[in-house]
């Protein structure tokens, strides 16, 4: 585990969020431990994705979003006035429900982020190849695609596309990876493969993963957050939550009484 950094990768205090007049998050106080996988569960519309999207401030694109409270990533307030939004996005990568490879080759997809941030500085082809191989190796995709790196990324299977979308973040050197139901567009085999990959990335990155799949949360995370109607109900070690939930709502949800 990365030992140098702070123990808490994401800390929120009294985070409230409104879409127009609709309040989606209520006083969310969370501390996500660095270097582990934390899953977020809860019924649709409970604010999981909203929470995820406010961490790297991608929500702001919608003009009518208003937040109060604070979000700290690696002990720095991401809403502080001196913060450069692009640096936040660099540090906090995001993976979406539907794989969204850019309409470029596999190579250009992986190198896209790196090229964005190196400015006019020259980088040799062999250095780019190293970056490419390292990113694709980390997501267990190198052996599959190494012989056709110039093929369009959209020709890959969904599972491979999703792995590519994760790999694409790595050359930018993020510390936090946010994943919004990364497996819900995949078949069971793909889900297993991507889960396995996420498990592999544990330790090097802090991973916060939203899921609808309770079994997935249970298998593939170390801590678990249960949200309901915009509030955090429970945040404990995954084992504890599924074996002995503290709150009645959590127990009800886990047993499938609503959601």
């Amino acid at each position, binding site marked *: 585990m990365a030992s140098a950094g702070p123990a808490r990768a994401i800390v929120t205090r009294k985070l409230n969020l409104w879409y127009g007049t609709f309040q989606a998050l209520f006083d969310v106080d969370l501390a996500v431990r660095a270097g582990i996988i934390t899953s977020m569960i809860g019924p649709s519309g409970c604010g999981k994705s909203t929470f995820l999207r406010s961490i790297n401030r991608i929500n702001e694109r919608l003009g009518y979003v208003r937040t109060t409270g604070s979000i700290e990533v690696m002990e720095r307030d991401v809403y502080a006035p001196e913060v450069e939004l692009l640096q936040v*996005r660099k540090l906090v990568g995001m993976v979406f429900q539907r794989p969204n490879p850019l309409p470029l080759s596999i190579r250009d997809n992986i190198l*896209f982020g790196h090229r964005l941030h190196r400015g006019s500085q020259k980088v040799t082809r062999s250095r780019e190849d190293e970056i490419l191989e390292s990113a694709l190796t980390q997501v267990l995709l190198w052996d599959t695609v190494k012989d056709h790196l110039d093929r369009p990324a*959209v020709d890959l299977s969904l599972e491979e596309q999703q792995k590519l979308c994760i790999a694409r973040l790595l050359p930018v050197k993020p510390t936090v990876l946010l994943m919004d139901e990364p497996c819900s567009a995949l078949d069971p085999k793909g889900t297993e493969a991507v889960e396995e990959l996420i498990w592999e990335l544990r330790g090097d990155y802090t991973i916060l993963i939203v899921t609808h799949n309770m079994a997935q949360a249970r298998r593939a995370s170390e801590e678990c957050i249960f949200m309901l109607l915009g509030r955090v109900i429970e945040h404990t070690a995954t084992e504890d939550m599924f074996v002995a939930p503290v709150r009645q709502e959590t127990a009800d949800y886990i047993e499938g009484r609503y959601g």
Partner: protein
Amino acid sequence: MFEATELNRKNQKTERLWRLLFLMMTVLLILPVLIILGVLIYHGGPMITIDFLFTEPTNGMTAGGILPALVGTVWLVAVALLVSVPIGIAAALYLSEYAADNWLTRSINLAIINLAGVPSIVHALFGVGAFVLFFRFGTSILAASLTLAIMTLPVVIVATRESLQAVPHAFREACWNMGASRWQTIRHVVLPNSVSGILTGVILEVSRTAGETAPIMFTGAAFFLPFLPQSVFDQTMAMSLHLFVISTQVPGVPENLPFGVALVLISMVLAMNALSIAFRMVLRGRKKW
């Protein structure tokens, strides 16, 4: 077991009826276009010679060619697009990629769509007031082209904005999440994937602009001027106005001459449209998602 029932047969009859109706409407739509083209080619076709295209009109525009009008139209359209395309694309980029989605943006969008419907004579009079008189450009290519530019601007904006919106939002999110700035996202992902639509819109505008008469007749197009323009401050003849003039204002014009002019004008427009379709096909072929 699978034989048609009474109800099936009734349905089939209605089905045939509707089908026939729609087919007839389509024919009704195409027929006038074909007739116009046919008449133009029949009467105008023999007029078209190298001399016709490359000499000046003579004998009080009852003989000779159309070179000054042809060149003038090219000038007018080129200068108009040089102004309206960059401004239009920039405005569309701002509205689609930067502006927050609020009531102000929405009302601006609505205004632009309405602006596209303003009659061209209104633009013409605006052009006289603004460019000819206020800015003292006089009646010149510049004044006429600026008037045309103002007229085409809303259409360029709408066409560009639609092409930009057709680029999946997921592409933008993918870029932002790697820390790409707005401009980097536009430059590397949004524009390359919308350029075919933008070009198509622009080229279609060319053909519309080439045919406009009202906006140029008070602002820069001349009745008869058998010289080629030397700069944007000159007046010029133009195909559309020339056609209007020889059809209605000049006595003793041979019957086939206006047909010849019209045929050249319509060929220019069709050639541009064909080019736009070709562009779209080539660029679409590269697109994949």
